[in-house]
């Protein structure tokens, strides 16, 4: 099945809110210009269950969505690898099609 548009890499990173600026700085290093942050409500993993209470924002998790040109995305991913464990990141990668591909160069 072929989709309209042009292929790009979609990167989704589940990360604690206080660490988002770090991720964004790293994006900048790879000249990836855009991102969108999305909320989450609760979850469960090896570290136990959590619930967003916003008061103890240290464990308030969000998803950072980044659409980028595959080469740039790969380079960014390599840079983020060392942080995976210490930051407790969950990273999901997929290929999607976008309209206006020049926005995600």
């Amino acid at each position, binding site marked *: 099945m072929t989709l309209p548009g042009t292929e790009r890499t979609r990167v989704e990173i589940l990360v*604690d809110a*206080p*660490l988002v*600026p*770090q991720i964004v700085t790293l994006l900048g290093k790879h000249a990836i210009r855009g991102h969108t942050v999305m909320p989450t409500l609760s979850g469960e993993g090896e*570290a*136990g*269950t*959590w*619930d*967003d*209470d*916003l*008061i*103890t*924002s*240290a*464990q308030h998790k969000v998803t950072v969505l980044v659409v980028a040109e595959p080469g740039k995305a790969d380079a960014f991913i390599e840079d983020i690898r060392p*942080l995976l*464990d*210490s*930051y*407790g990141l969950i990273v999901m990668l997929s290929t999607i099609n976008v309209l206006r591909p020049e926005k995600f160069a």
Partner: protein
Amino acid sequence: METLLSPVVLFFVLGALAALVRSDLSIPEAVGKGISLYLMVAIGLKGGVEVAEAGFTLELLVAAAAGIALSFMLPLPVFVVLRRVGKLSSVNAAAVSAHYGSVSVVTFVTGLEILTRQQIPAAGYTVAVLALMETPAIVSGLLLAQRYGGAEPRPMGDLLHETLTNASVMLLVGSFSVGLIVGKDGFSPIAPVFEGAFRGVLCLFLLDMGLIAAKRLREGKSLTPRLIALAIAIALTNGMLGVLLGAAIGLDVGTAAALGILAGSASYIAVPAAMRLALPQADPGLYLGMSLAVTFPFNILVGIPIYIWIAQQVVQ
């Protein structure tokens, strides 16, 4: 005992109970956060207005210096104990110690409430001391992590910026300043919200905090009995040190008790956020578990009355 029967404490117990029986009761996060901001503004304003009335005094300066010293120094013995007795890694011990050097706004506010009920009010300037004690411990904790835990040093500029522009510090210092500027007359039109409503709102907030703390106690995987015992012992020791220092520098009973409450309390808002950023390799389940799920309820239910009692014995 009488303390335990104040509505504020009873609502905390109700919240904790609801979480322990796994009720589906929950307060929307935005509302909880909004209330916590309100409490900081209210307490800041109140302190500022009181200092505007009483004037800046030498006592204020001495108490401020004592608070800053406590926040800076307390992480050191806590770090050692957590390493030796708690068997924590250096990075984790450093992160936890920063929490115990810093303070919990809600514990402080609940303490003020109870002091007022017992008619031994603390001086208005203790709010300024609260604000000043928030952040020095963060610096100590990070230095410990760098020195003993091999944590990468962060640029001092960044660190200073983060600690000084931290939301609670901004709000407390900002509202304190507004209170100072507008004084009693400027305050009176807004008093219904920031004074009249204060205790009722505090009840709702402690209901929420009871839920949050007990849920964390129930679900946390990082807490061992040993760490729980340490979280209580450290609170008691720090609290006692605070009261003694307060008595030594000549504070009255209420104010010395307040300094004890500050020293005995552990941060679970400002410091965790700072640690998550600066020491991502430390375990947040650990430091939030100890400060929020153990020390916080302990202080609300048991610690505060003890610190007050010590102050009554020590200050003459």
